[in-house]
């Protein structure tokens, strides 16, 4: 999307909505693991095994869409590599039908669970002011009581077309982080439902659109390369590096599951960026861990760490 901003590519609405589905599924997959792992660290293993089944279902949807399960690679400049197939939509429907009951049950296991509440309330707390100073974003910042969400503040990918709430906590402790993530999953579910409905409303040729009309940045389908002159030319140009990106610098950020995921790109023309830097939310807020656990019990430190949701692959990207 940063490239699209740099190039000024306008994506079709259907692409935006499909992207929203993918991104919200990812958010659910992330929050599921995070919240259930907090449970595991408190000694409740059941929830983790139970929701894993539905994370698996999300992976299956990804698998249908792009072939990969975790490292999804379907995004292209201007859209997707190919259209979603019917099985992907069927699996999505299955997910939308079965998941709410599961999430409800998961919620019942934890939310008012006395042991869980006593373990999490008041531990690993951070004030809104300190959280901002530490550069917190995403659910961790919202749990501290700051209603900052990029999906609302600087909408991308047509998020402005959707109705959803931003859950906000008050104390910024482990329990609030858990609640915020839990509530966000319900909101994501509702966003996916809305997006899926919007996707279904496209009729005729519009219902087949899966990328913007930017042949210079977009490899044509292989079948076309063999049969159509134009597609062959574009294929050749892209592979041989004759398409160029304008020089400029751009910063774009999205509300990833963990917070503000930013991409700072400097282009000097040509094919590859001069400088590309990621702002990884994990890296930024992990610094606060020391302050969060100071003076608390060792067992609380473990829970605090899981409730911050640190992803190693994100830390050192």
């Amino acid at each position, binding site marked *: 999307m940063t490239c699209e901003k740099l190039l000024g590519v306008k994506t079709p609405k259907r692409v935006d909505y499909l992207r929203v589905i993918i991104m919200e599924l990812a958010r659910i997959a992330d929050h599921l693991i995070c919240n259930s792992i907090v449970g595991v660290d408190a000694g409740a293993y059941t929830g983790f095994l139970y929701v894993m089944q539905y994370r698996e279902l999300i992976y299956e949807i990804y698998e249908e869409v792009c072939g990969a399960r975790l490292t999804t690679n379907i995004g292209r400049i201007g859209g997707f590599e190919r259209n979603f197939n019917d099985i992907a939509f069927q699996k999505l429907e299955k997910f939308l039908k079965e998941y709410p009951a599961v999430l409800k049950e998961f919620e019942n296991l934890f939310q008012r669970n006395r042991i869980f509440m006593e373990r999490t309330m008041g531990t690993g707390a951070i004030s809104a002011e300190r959280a901002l100073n530490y*550069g917190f974003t995403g659910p961790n910042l919202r749990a501290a009581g700051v209603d900052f969400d990029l999906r609302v503040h600087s909408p991308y990918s047509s998020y402005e077309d959707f109705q959803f709430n931003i859950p906000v906590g008050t104390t910024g402790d482990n329990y609030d982080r858990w609640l915020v993530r839990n509530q966000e999953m319900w909101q994501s579910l509702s966003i996916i439902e809305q997006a899926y409905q919007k996707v279904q409303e496209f009729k005729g040729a519009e219902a087949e659109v899966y990328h913007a009309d930017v042949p210079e940045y977009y490899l044509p389908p292989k079948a076309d390369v063999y049969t159509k002159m134009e597609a062959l030319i574009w294929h050749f140009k892209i592979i041989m590096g004759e398409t160029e990106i304008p020089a400029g610098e751009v910063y774009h950020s999205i509300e990833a599951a963990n917070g503000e995921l930013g991409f700072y790109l400097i282009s000097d023309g040509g094919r590859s960026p001069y400088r590309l830097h990621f702002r990884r939310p994990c890296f930024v807020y992990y610094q606060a861990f020391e302050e969060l656990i100071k003076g608390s019990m060792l067992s609380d430190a473990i829970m605090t760490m899981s409730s911050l949701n640190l992803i190693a692959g994100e830390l050192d990207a």
Partner: protein
Amino acid sequence: MALSNEHIKQRLVEKFGDQVSGFEEPYGMLTFEAPREMNLKVLNFLYDDAELKFRFLTDITGVHYPDKTGQELAVVYHLHNLEDNVRIRFKVFANVNQPDVYTATGLFSAANWMERETFDFFGINFVGHPNLKRILNVEEMDYFPLRKEFPLEDQTRIDKDDEMFGRG
């Protein structure tokens, strides 16, 4: 009232005169630069000013421009005013032989690791940083890997002909 880029620029020029320069607005984000000794003063002003309130540090990173003699290394700050939802980009340039820039850790706790990362990859010496050590690379490393002196491709390979890839 929303804060406009024009207004921010005006406030900065009022305060710092011609020491802030290079105003640009690539893709809507106000970008400017200042001499490296000024970086803390500018950041403090942006933080404290009752109108500007750039109190959220989004990102710090470095860039290496080997062709700009005397100004090879850039430190880029991305700041965010959460109340008005305005972002700005602020750069300082330093000489590669003496890349000293004041640390922003006193102002933003978040700057701690961001500066360590920038030091790690570009060798920018943040003066006054509490713990300026490598953070992602191994400690024994004696070079700064993201400087442009390291070519992207393995130079020992002879089977790749740039001519054939349109880069000759």
